């Protein structure tokens, strides 16, 4: 089974800085992390690989060259190959442009039985890239999966948990599934794989490598959405009240209030 997992390198949420002029997020390499929901998707892929020896996992990322170091971490947990789509012309792409570029890359990389994505990225939170990729590729899509089971080489079962309901879908492959954050936690790396990652370089794909690529669909110009303005919210520390040396009954009282609020 050939599995592709889309993994975005995002800025750690407490380290986000904006470029006020371009209204985009600054990506400084030292604060990059692999998007948590995408890592949940990767864990599902790895579980399939645990069960089926012939499963082969490729990851696809889109971003600047600085993403390479974070991509290496994917090899450390057991991915077979990693691809980075990088091109200056992609800077400023919105969800629509991103989905188009990713779909074209996937077409180039080959036929995949299963494509997994995180439900949304920590920085954009749009949740629309995965369904758009599926639309471009003309394959079925299920969003917000909480569990994935392989039934046979042709079919998988996907669970989606809502507050009071559980949906169970059976899907024919190839299909694209977006996975809910925290539905699985990525495993620890292995020493031998960390050594492999040490000298691993992700495969680089540029837009020029993609067939029949419509350049007018990407970048700030090609994007359908435009960010009008940023409003930064700051947490005012002066509003925090710190209580020290509180006793058990006070803790219980606070816990009760919190429980009512959530």
């Amino acid at each position: 089974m050939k599995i592709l997992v889309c993994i975005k390198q995002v800025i750690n949420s407490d380290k986000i800085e904006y470029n006020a002029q371009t209204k985009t997020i600054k990506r400084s390499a030292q604060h990059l992390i692999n998007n948590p929901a995408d890592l949940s998707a990767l864990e599902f892929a790895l579980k399939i690989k645990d069960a089926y020896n012939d499963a082969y996992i490729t990851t696809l990322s889109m971003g600047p060259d600085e993403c390479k170091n974070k991509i290496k971490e994917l090899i450390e947990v057991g991915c077979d190959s990693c691809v980075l789509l990088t091109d200056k012309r992609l800077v400023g792409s919105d969800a629509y442009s991103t989905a188009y570029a990713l779909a074209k890359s996937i077409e180039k990389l080959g036929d995949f039985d299963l494509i997994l994505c995180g439900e949304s990225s920590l920085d954009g939170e749009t949740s629309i890239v995965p369904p758009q990729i599926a639309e471009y590729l003309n394959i079925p899509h299920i969003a917000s999966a909480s569990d994935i089971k392989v039934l046979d080489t042709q079919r998988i079962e996907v669970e989606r948990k809502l507050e009071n309901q559980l949906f169970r879908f059976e899907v024919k492959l190839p299909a694209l599934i977006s996975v809910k954050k925290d539905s699985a936690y990525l495993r620890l790396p292995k020493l031998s794989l960390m050594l492999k990652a040490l000298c691993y370089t992700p495969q680089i794909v540029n837009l020029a490598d993609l067939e029949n690529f419509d350049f007018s669909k990407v970048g700030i110009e090609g994007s359908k959405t435009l960010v009008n303005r940023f409003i930064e919210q700051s947490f005012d520390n002066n509003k925090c009240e710190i209580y020290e040396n509180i006793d058990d009954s006070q803790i219980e009282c606070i816990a009760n209030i919190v429980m009512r609020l959530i």
Partner: protein
Amino acid sequence: MEYFLSEEQKIIKKLAKRISDEYVSKVAIKYDKEGIFPRDILNLLAYTELTGVYIPKEYGGFGGGVMEMCLVVEELSRNCAGVAVSYAATALGAYPIILYGNEEQKKKYLPKIAKGELIAAFALTEADAGSDVSSIKTVAEKKGDYYILNGSKHWITNGGEADIYVVFAVTDKSKGPRGISAFIVEKGYEGFYCGKKEDKMGIRSSSTTELIFEDCKVPRENLLGREGTGFIVAMKTFDRTRPGVAAMAVGIAQGAYEHAVRYAKERFQFGQPLSSFQAIQHMLADMYINIEAARSLLYSTCRMIDSGIKDFSKESSACKVFASDVAMKVTTDAVQIMGGNGYVKDYPVEKMMRDAKVTQIFEGANQIQRNIIASEIIKEY
């Protein structure tokens, strides 16, 4: 301080640090309180392949040496020395096989130890034979295809939890230390029992028990090395594992120091943080100096051993003595800096102080280490 570790060693340290900070730190206080053996953490170490760092490549390990083993022990000890010693005791049980096992024994046990499928232990100490190894009373009598072991062992780390034990017994009483032999005893052998579990001051998540041998039948092929070489097997093993105790000590000291520095910056008295008082600053500075000195001696010793140099008893003992004394001093000072909070079990430093004590005692008390160092020095000049 920059220690110029190789890329591989940096990776091992990073991986062990991650497990220590993300997993060991969360269970350290609970496991200490309830005396829970850290099998879950050992399973993680096995999954991540850190169980095999010191096992030769041809037997399924990473092919590292004492340095690699010490890096793992040090990082685990930063959060819990009990967990670290449970890992390190397997190395203590594996080294006699690495050093003196025959091909069959190595093939049978080392790959499984590397994979974390087998936990090992080292059984030398007895009620009346600790530092004085030659006084052991457990006997092994050859009968046909078996050796019959009788006697008991005390304070055996990983006792009851280990799958294989390297056991030392007297095969020829008339020959003194040259009459001791080493055997690989598997859990479940007839006549082999696990006795009382010790209620210890520190390293409480590790298992320390008595072992009892009552006409225990050990197959002849489980003799390690030749008959009568047990004393050498034990001493050469200790030379390689004493740095492990030093690594444990450095890790405990580092953990206590980190807690103390953070606390000194957060705790306010007289309207200013503790860290602004010179009395505290000097204690923190001394902690740093001592820890780096201990780590420098430890890493230098490891590099010396792994380079293939033959005689390193003096250096191995020196790093164990120095690092364990540093750990005791640093943890005591960490408790002092943290005052009442340092003395209660809500904070980990009181545990670290209890854990540090054993590093001055086990794998040869510091007094016997000084004897070893002194005798080597006197021989040299």
